[in-house]
């Protein structure tokens, strides 16, 4: 199966910007999550981020918070998520990136956690509450297990910090586009353009922009600003949760196509 880095190499060869949808595992249920992964894979996703529901998601806005709460209320457990991933991942073209807060990792034990997600077919890991200073505990063992740990850069990060984070990040560098939590925004902050350029000056690694992107024109804008990937979360989570699972799946399929069309145009 393709690693996150390899996936970006292929895309770079074809000068393509990647689409990375995000969904929350277990909302409305894990069968729907499995089907959603297949749908997104078919409808234009290049990589897929899968959120592990957590009780205290302090980097998340209301949409993903609510999805996580619903998933936990249904009794979604990490083992069930990984069991589902193990079945689905081999059937997907897109590498899977797991998005989880640090406590569930720590609770399971770092090595055991990495070993289990790698065995399930997970290729990348995003931990939103693990900044560079605390990431050592995860970065080195992750290499051993073949999981790439993607670090985040924020609009508030000073230049020297951006360079240090980019240097340590694996797979790609996740650029948080807005000072805030995850969630849909009406407008992209213009300074994202400067941030992408700043980041480009200090790293050859791919850059993925996320937080706040919810419309095809915003995705297009971010691509135009030079990003290698567009990450869209809350807008998918919201669509998938509305109506019946079948309606939700249909809705995210159409949405995924429209985003893809917006970033492969011309």
């Amino acid at each position, binding site marked *: 199966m393709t690693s996150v880095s390899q996936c970006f190499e292929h895309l770079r060869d074809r000068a393509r910007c990647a689409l990375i949808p995000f969904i929350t595992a277990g909302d409305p249920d894990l069968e729907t999550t499995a089907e959603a992964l297949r749908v997104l894979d078919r409808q234009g996703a290049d990589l897929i981020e899968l959120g592990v529901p957590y009780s*205290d998601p302090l980097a998340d*806005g209301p949409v993903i918070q609510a999805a996580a709460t619903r998933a936990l209320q249904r009794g979604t457990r990490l083992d069930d998520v990984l069991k589902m991933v193990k079945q689905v991942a081999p059937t997907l073209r897109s590498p899977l990136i797991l998005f989880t807060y640090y406590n569930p990792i720590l609770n399971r034990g770092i090595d055991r956690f990495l070993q289990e997600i790698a065995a399930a077919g997970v290729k990348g890991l995003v931990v939103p509450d693990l900044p560079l200073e605390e990431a050592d505990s995860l970065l080195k063992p992750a290499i051993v297990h073949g999981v790439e740990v993607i670090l985040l850069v924020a609009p508030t990060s000073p230049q020297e910090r951006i360079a240090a984070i980019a240097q340590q990040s694996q797979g790609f560098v996740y650029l948080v586009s807005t*000072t805030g939590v995850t969630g849909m925004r009406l407008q992209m902050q213009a300074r994202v353009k400067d941030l992408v350029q700043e980041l480009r000056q200090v790293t050859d690694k791919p850059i993925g922009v996320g937080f706040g992107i919810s419309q095809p024109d915003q995705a297009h804008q971010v691509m135009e600003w030079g990003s290698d990937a567009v990450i869209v979360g809350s807008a998918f989570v919201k669509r998938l949760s509305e109506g019946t699972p079948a309606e939700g799946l249909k809705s995210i399929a159409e949405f995924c196509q429209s985003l893809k069309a917006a970033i492969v145009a011309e």
Partner: protein
Amino acid sequence: MGHSFVYRFRLVTTTPLSTNLQPDSSAFSHDRPDSLGRFGKFGGKYVPETLMPALFELEAAYHQYRKDPDFQQELQGLLTDYVGRPSPLYFAERLTEHYAKPDGTGPQIYLKREDLNHTGAHKINNALAQALLAKRMGKQRIIAETGAGQHGVATATVCARFGLKCIIYMGVHDMERQSLNVFRMRLMGAEVCPVASGTGTLKDATSEAIRDWVTNVETTHYILGSVAGPHPYPMMVRDFHAVIGQETRAQAQEKWGGVPDILLACVGGGSNAMGLFHEFINESQVRMIGVEAAGHGVETEKHAATLTKGRVGVLHGAMSYLLQDDDGQVIEPHSISAGLDYPGVGPEHSYLMETARAEYYAVTDEQALAAFQKLSQLEGIIPALETAHAIAYLDALCPQLVGSPRIVINCSGRGDKDVLTVSGLLNS
């Protein structure tokens, strides 16, 4: 560590030991926390990247101003004239008589009267100092979380005093049981934002305050109200409350020419306990005891006894003991006291427990309620329900003591805010 430690700790809970668990004093000889904000393995900064520069900025400002004569002068002046410090160290004569043994010996019980501070609790020490810091950092918007409402009231108070915009996050359940404090905050011009997620208590209010800070970090200072959260908060909040222990030392010296034998304080996040303990940490003859909330009992699922029953984890930016399930999901705690109803605990307390420098026990809602009434009846002092947990532990502690050791209890807050809750419970 894991199981072997838990085992040792359980032994300690049944038989408190004062002398044979003393740690190697060299472990306490250097500065805590270290430059990464660690107390041993506890503490650190587990926050979204967006907040990291703000935490560095805050740490730098703290180190700059703590030594700045103007800052210190302004703070000391306000602590004296606005807060009403020093707070008295009061000899609780009838409480002492209550626990006296037939032979006339028994502990001499003193109360450090933080309840007499302006706004009725120790919380104002930290809120005031952080507001002065925020002003110097040029931040005009203040946010805070609150459980019992004491920290929210203290923050609203200092914001009114300095003309700062103030937003307080409070769980909907806590707003109900602490409605008097909600009114006080609003009266002083604060906006109180109800938080309905989770159980609508302190944990959820804290998460929401952190989300606000992530969003408005460039204009906003977050006055965190306990010795919890990411570095530098556990250090800074402790230092701003250290005046409690410093005054206690001077007052003990004046009253009996020595230091206290035992320090006793309730622990939710643990700020009033750290404020009392910090001054005496290097003196191993001073025994330090923290009392957690056992809710319906630590053997049930309804308690907030983090150090007694939790495992090491990460919540709200710090590694510390944490109430969590097998999957690492944070468990909703329970306590009659909104201020102790928190599934985490300040990282330095985890460190003090693991190094056996301090001891931690838990008392139930019922025991706290009894102590609430006992202190009211014996001393004419209505304690906060949080404080009542520390008082309640006297029942277990006093019979084990030999001679007449001097106990100083941090009387961390007054109970006016709790009388409605308690009268409801006593009538039902």
